[in-house]
């Protein structure tokens, strides 16, 4: 692996200058505007970034300043990153759907002096934050709609900043000065602050240097042979490390094209039009696509339904083998070809996956069924394991070495070891520098010799692949000593389309119980087909027939658990369906949809108590919830608790248990 420090392009602005020469006429960015795809070549991007950067400098932004970037994936917001880096300022992307209070914490912590935001909604949030935090001097907005009447000092439109830059460029020497500034930048400069979503406590600001980000981008592009010919659609939050690496770092390194969707609702249609070749999505996205497909297939004619299911069975048999280059009988090959023509091709086209060379899923465990579904259609979907602190990548599944239960092998140049405690640790040139203004957390996470604690419990299997069990500190024990890995159990349940979210309890308890959130799309469609009327999530969740369906799912998971030696005793004994959806606005899950256990323990204390009290079968609960516009309200109601009949552990385990009992 080449070293970044030695190369002449050790910062992103330098990579941009290189790309503007090397790939001058190749598309760097596309965005759909007024229904038509607009394209910027690398040379165009350099021009946009240059004007912006000099304009920003004119507004007083200088080396070391932190600037928040808030909005959906927009070309201008990506350009802002590079424009800031060219000045030595530090971009700080923030989750665009967070409420002002949450955002305020991050902005204050980082001490930002300016913000570049997408629209009026975000400007309003900045002004609200500005009431208590005086640091923000400048706000720049992309979309002027609704802002014409705002008379606020320091509020500028994106165009006006670029225009100032363009004017300044007319002066001789302006461009040379700007280029000289970039030349002075080095790989050890801070590239970006990425705040972790923080499943525990307040978010932490992960500081990444230029060389670590570029190293990661090189490693990942090398691993999958990505070149300037790739096309990706940028649709995941810009504040998430995955998007930053995929849509920015790797794109600048390889020179490939990043497309911004028209609106968050049009992503699938936009992906279809652009024919993305490299794809990155959390399991949730893949799950949703399957749920929607299955739901709409329910409404299809019998003939179509039969054909669909017949060819899916064919794909299940042979699809993965063909993808992995194994030999398959001629008949199966022909059948699969026919299936490709009749079902798989149109399906992939519908999803916008026709051109996908490599697709990744990460962030959470993906259901083996879901994973195999895509692979059997001929989509090279792989898993990776990563963290913000690693600049995403720790392990990836190499082509043709795909096992649903592992996350693959360490990338070249990344060392991974399992600590005595069972925790996964990693070290590479791509790891983070520190947590901003949090030396204590840095010291706890990163050892002196560069090893980083991942916080996940895992093990290597005999094929050399890493297997992640759970968050190390979440793995608990039942009172009888049985291991209780909550996420492992939750994921098994979440793989059912009717179930969206699960929280399992059992550490230091006598048995395992759980909260369940139903999936409103899947269950709603079921309700429609079965003439079940409902007015709200709460009403649907309490429906006895819904309970019955979920009970069957829980039973199926219990049966599965009964067959696994380690966790046979951790079957779910009691469960309930929550009266409201877990929501990041209420702090119950993170913006990337990870459960915050401590918050849930606090908010639903009554329900948890009731779950473990076998006398209670119905519990009243009152919960405060936040609406989308930030107002608060109360939901209350009775929640039913169901008890399950547990399965006897299967024969092999049974013998073991008996021995223990004697």
């Amino acid at each position, binding site marked *: 692996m080449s070293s970044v420090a030695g190369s002449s392009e050790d910062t992103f602005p330098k990579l941009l200058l290189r790309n503007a020469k090397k790939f001058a006429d190749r598309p760097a960015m596309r965005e759909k505007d007024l*229904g038509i795809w607009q394209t910027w070549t690398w040379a165009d991007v350099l021009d946009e970034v240059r004007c912006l950067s000099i304009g920003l400098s004119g507004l007083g932004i200088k080396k070391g300043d932190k600037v928040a970037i808030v909005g959906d994936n927009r070309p201008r917001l990506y350009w802002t990153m590079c424009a800031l880096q060219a000045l030595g300022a530090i971009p700080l992307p923030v989750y665009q759907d967070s409420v002002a209070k949450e955002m305020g914490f991050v902005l204050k912590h980082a001490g930002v002096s300016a913000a570049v935001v997408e629209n009026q909604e975000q400007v309003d949030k900045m002004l609200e934050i500005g009431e208590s935090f005086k640091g923000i001097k400048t706000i720049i907005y992309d979309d002027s709609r609704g802002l014409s009447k705002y008379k606020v000092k320091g509020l500028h439109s994106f165009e006006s900043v670029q225009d100032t830059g363009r004017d300044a460029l007319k002066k001789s020497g302006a461009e040379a000065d700007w280029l000289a500034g970039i030349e002075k930048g080095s790989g050890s400069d801070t590239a970006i602050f990425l705040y972790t979503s923080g499943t525990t406590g307040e978010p932490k600001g992960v500081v990444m240097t230029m060389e670590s980000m570029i190293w990661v981008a090189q490693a990942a592009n090398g691993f999958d042979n990505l070149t300037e010919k790739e096309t990706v659609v940028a649709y995941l939050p810009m504040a998430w490390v995955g998007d930053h690496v995929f849509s920015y770092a790797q794109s600048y390194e390889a020179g490939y094209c990043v497309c911004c969707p028209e*609106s968050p*609702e049009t992503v699938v*249609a936009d992906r279809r039009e652009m024919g993305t070749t490299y794809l990155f999505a959390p399991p949730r996205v893949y799950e949703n696509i399957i749920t929607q497909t299955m739901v709409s297939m329910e409404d299809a004619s019998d003939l179509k339904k039969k054909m669909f299911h017949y060819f899916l069975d064919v794909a299940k048999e042979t699809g993965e083998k063909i993808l992995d280059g194994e030999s398959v009988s001629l008949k199966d090959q022909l059948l699969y070809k026919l299936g490709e023509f009749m079902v798989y091709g149109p399906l992939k086209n519908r999803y916008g996956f026709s051109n996908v060379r490599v697709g990744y899923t990460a962030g959470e465990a993906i259901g083996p069924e879901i994973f195999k579904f895509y692979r059997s259609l001929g989509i090279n979907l792989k898993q990776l394991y990563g963290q913000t602190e690693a600049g995403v990548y720790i392990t990836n599944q190499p082509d043709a070495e795909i096992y649903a239960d592992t996350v693959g092998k360490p990338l070249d140049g990344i060392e991974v070891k399992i600590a005595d405690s069972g925790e996964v640790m990693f070290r590479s040139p791509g790891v983070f520098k520190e947590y901003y203004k949090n030396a204590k957390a840095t010291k706890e996470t990163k050892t002196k010799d560069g090893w980083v604690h991942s916080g996940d419990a895992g093990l290597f299997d005999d094929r050399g692949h890493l297997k992640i069990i759970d968050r190390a500190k979440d793995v608990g024990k039942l009172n009888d000593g049985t291991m209780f890995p909550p996420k492992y159990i939750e994921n098994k349940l979440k793989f059912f389309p009717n179930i969206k979210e699960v929280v399992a309890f059992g550490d230091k308890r006598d048995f395992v119980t759980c909260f369940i959130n139903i999936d409103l799309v899947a269950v709603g469609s079921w309700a429609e087909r079965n003439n079940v009327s409902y007015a709200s999530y709460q009403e649907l969740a309490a429906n006895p027939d819904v309970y019955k369906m979920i009970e069957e799912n829980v039973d199926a998971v219990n049966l599965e658990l009964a067959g696994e030696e380690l966790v046979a005793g951790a079957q779910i004994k009691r469960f309930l369906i929550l009266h409201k959806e877990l929501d990041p606005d209420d702090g119950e899950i993170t913006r990337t949809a990870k459960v915050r256990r401590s918050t849930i323990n606090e908010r639903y204390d009554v329900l948890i108590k009731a779950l473990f009290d076998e006398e209670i079968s119905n519990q009243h609960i009152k919960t405060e919830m936040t609406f989308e*516009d930030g107002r608060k309200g109360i939901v209350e109601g009775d929640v039913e608790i169901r008890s399950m009949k547990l399965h006897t552990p299967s024969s092999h385990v049974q013998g073991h248990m008996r021995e223990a009992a004697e």
Partner: protein
Amino acid sequence: MSNEIMPGDVLLELDDVSLSFGGVKAIRNVGFDIKKGEVRAIIGPNGAGKTSMLNVINGFCHPQEGTITYKGVKRHDMKPYVAATQGIARTFQNVALFRGMSTLDNIMAGRTLKMHKNFFWQLFYYGPARAEEMEHREKVEQVIDFLEIAHLRRTPVGQLPYGLQKRVELARALAMEPELLLLDEPMAGMNLEEKEDMSRFILEVNGEFGTTIALIEHDMGVVMDLSDRVVVLNYGAKLADGTPAEVSSNQDVIDAYLGVAH
């Protein structure tokens, strides 16, 4: 133009208007005005004559008595499409869209009156007709972007939920680039979130394009928040006229809405 109407000037004036259907007097001697650039609400209990009032304004019904002055010109009986060419667009209480057509086609329909190339050019979709179509499409795309319905472009409107159909209907009216926009119960049957969206759009249409808006609405919260002036009708007669605050403290209005003990 010589008689340019500036914001704040009277755009439309109704004077002593009466409308009856046979023996039923829908409107009795009502007079009020709509000023350019304002949001004017027409409220009243069921059967007060609100929709008839809109029908009179856009030329669908012709009053037996009284005069209507639009942009300073006294109006004669006319067909609704003439009103449309003069810059009056409307939406309906019960959504009136082409259900089998896509969102895009429905909104394009709003441009029909602005298409000038003759039938033969359009038949071959060539030359000027094509250029014209592109021009109109761009206008329509701006409306689509404005109302945030890009994801619905190709969806037949019959498949859309009610709240979104209302939004498409507003889009079609906006595609006409109207000077005066008549909205007949734009929030009816909507949930809170949809109402908030619709309110935001109405305010933005008014604020960004300076479009004058006259709306009928039952949700008093919406009326009080959105409108500059309110006219109250009851049994076809004008009961009150003024700012939301004036109207809501008017005893006659309170009695009409809540009923009076006899």
